[in-house]
Every structure is written in structure tokens, then in C-alpha cells.
């Protein structure tokens, strides 16, 4: 269906949460709300799953104290029309802080990308930028690099009007220091499956 001739209904985050509460979705459905669209998450292969585990392990070592939560594929209340479930997030606080509502302000979001790089770079990159997520990583399994995005800023050419100004692509021999853990040093090689 061509987007130019059809406008589909968009969902707010509150409506999406209500759909979940009412049990409208089938058990085991993998969905994310992205800019009002209910996007189906593709099934994951073992490289993708391994990438998620490696990133999670590395980030839990770095964000080790109890001021931080490192989550795998849990919902983020990103904005009024988006509730993604990023592969890995780092959020400030205690798990019980998020009993009333999902975390809205992660300090770092990571997606592991194999086939669908365009979705993670353009669509999600613009959404996370718009929500002022200060740092976004894409573990790019196709090219075996870690893409590091920082400094969200308005960009009219981006799908949601925002993009990251600083973009780095780090190869296996390089290191990365998360903004939220300025003394840490993570080898990119440790993140790649």
C-alpha cells in the first residue's frame, strides 16, 4: 500500500497501553508503538540474541551500582505516540520507581541490527533523537561495527524532524565510553558476537 494515498489510524501511547490491558493482542505478539504505528517486531536469530546478551553483560559491568537499571527489551514510555522496546536500555533509578509507569528517559538506548538497519538508523534514530535520548548505539552485525549517535538536534530531513549530530562508527579494535559512565572503557570486540 502506498503511503501517499492511504492514511492509517495512529495510536497514542495511552491507547496502546489500554489495548494491552484489555488483552486485545494475542499472547506472544511482538509489537512496538513507533510514532503512532503498531510495528511488528521481526523474529530474532541467534546472532541478534547473542549481541543483546553481550551488550547487556558489558553495560551491567559498567553501570554496576544500584543507581542504574540495565534492561533487555522492556517498554520505554518514549513519547505520547511511541512505546518501543529497545534491545537494551540504561535508565537511572530503582526497578520499583517504574511500577506506576514505564521509564521515559533512558540515558542510553541500544539496538542490535542485522537485516533491518534502515529502521534502526532512520526511523528509530529520529524518534530517539526527538525524545532527546542523549546517546543511541546500533550494534551493526552486518558490518561488524558499533554505531554511536550523540547530540540530538532538529533536522527537518529526518522522518520525525530530529536526528543525531554526532555519528561515529567504531570497529572491533576500538573502544567506547558511554556518556553516562565517563570513566568506563568498553572494547567493541566484546560486544560483537
Amino acid at each position, binding site marked *: 500500500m502506498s503511503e501517499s*494515498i492511504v492514511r*492509517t*489510524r495512529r495510536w497514542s501511547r495511552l491507547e496502546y497501553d489500554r489495548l494491552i490491558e484489555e488483552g486485545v493482542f494475542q499472547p506472544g505478539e511482538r509489537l512496538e508503538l513507533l510514532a503512532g504505528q503498531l*510495528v511488528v517486531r521481526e523474529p530474532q536469530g541467534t546472532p541478534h540474541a547473542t549481541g543483546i546478551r553481550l551488550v547487556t553483560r558489558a553495560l551491567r559491568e559498567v553501570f554496576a551500582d544500584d543507581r542504574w537499571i540495565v534492561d533487555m527489551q522492556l517498554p520505554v514510555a518514549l513519547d505520547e505516540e511511541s512505546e518501543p522496546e529497545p534491545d537494551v536500555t540504561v535508565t537511572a533509578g530503582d526497578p520499583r520507581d517504574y511500577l506506576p509507569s514505564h521509564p521515559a528517559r533512558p540515558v542510553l538506548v541500544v539496538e542490535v541490527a542485522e537485516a533491518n538497519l534502515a529502521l534502526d538508523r532512520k526511523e528509530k534514530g529520529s524518534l530517539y533523537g526527538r525524545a532527546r535520548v542523549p546517546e543511541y548505539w546500533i550494534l551493526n552485525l552486518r558490518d561488524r561495527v558499533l554505531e554511536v549517535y550523540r547530540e540530538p538536534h532538529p533536522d527537518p530531513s529526518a522522518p520525525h524532524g530530529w536526528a543525531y549530530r554526532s555519528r561515529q562508527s567504531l570497529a572491533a579494535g576500538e573502544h567506547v565510553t558511554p556518556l553516562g559512565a565517563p570513566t568506563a572503557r568498553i572494547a567493541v570486540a566484546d560486544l560483537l558476537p
Partner: protein
Amino acid sequence: MSETLQVRTRRWSRTEYDRLIALGIIQEDERLELLAGELVLRDRQSPGHAYAIEAVSEALRDAVAPGGHVRILSPIALDGESEPEPDLSVVPGAIRDYRDDHPSQPTLLVEVADTSLTFDREYKGSLYARARVPEYWIVNLNDRVLEVYREPGPDTSALYGWAYRAVQSLNAEEHVSPLAAPTARINVADVLP
């Protein structure tokens, strides 16, 4: 390297759609149609659009009685993933036959098109043909013609694998007899604003 954004959005069945309405998650006054699993927004009607609906209704009402009747903007249970609300439909039987279920076997569907012409031709035309609706009219306000589509058949080049084989474009001087009322004679001029 070109990157195409591939996003699959969640598709809805007609049963789920009816439940969303029953739960009040979708408001009754939202102008929506379920088309091949997608919740598509309908455009507002221009005065010419509304006029054409009423004029076609008036022209058909007596012609299709008593074996059938005319409905305006009412839902049709078209298939498992489609519940359109055509501008006008002719369905068999009496109004009280559809107290519990929407009609599923219309004999004629009519859409009035100005901005939606491509959508009504390619998208809805293929969907209605796939459901074996025997006759489909588009009141084409741009070109001031009545487009008459008949003989649904498989067509691999069509959006949903079906299309109408017989296509006629009738101008204001011509007239049409619906398949459902072969003795009736409707002047195209009478249905154009």
C-alpha cells in the same frame, strides 16, 4: 547502498476490529474503515461528494426494491480482515435482515471519488473484486463520469490479486442499468453534482 525502510504494521481481523469498537477504544464517530487488516482514515466529504451519495441513493432506491435496499455509509462484513463503509451499498433483503450482523454479500458498492480516485480504483477496486462483489461504481467527480466495474476475476498485477475485467466509463449523456436491477435506467447526469 540504498536502504529501504521495511516496517510491517500490525494487521487487524474483522473480529478484533469489532471488539475495539465494542470496548470503546475506537470511538464510534471516528471515520475509519478496516481494509485488508489496516485501519484506514476516511476523508471528510465535500458538498459535491455528499450530493452524489444522496443522488445515487435516490436513483437506486426504487429500482432495487423490493428484493434489496440501499444503505449509506454502513459497514459491510466484506472478508475476514475488511469492514469497509462504502459511500453506498445495495444489499439483498430488507433492513431488518441485518439487525445482528452487517451485510456480507452486497450486489453493488458505490464510492464517490474526488481526491480519493486512485485509492478507490486500485485499492478498493481490488479488495471488492477479491470479495467477488459483482458490481462496483465510482462516481468520478474529477472527470464527471460514472465508472462501472463488473466481472471480478484473478489478476496478479492487482494489489490484492483480483480486479474487475469489465470497465466502462459513462459520461453525463449516458445511462446505466445495475446488474441487480436490469430493467432500471439511471441517467448518469442525475447522479453528478
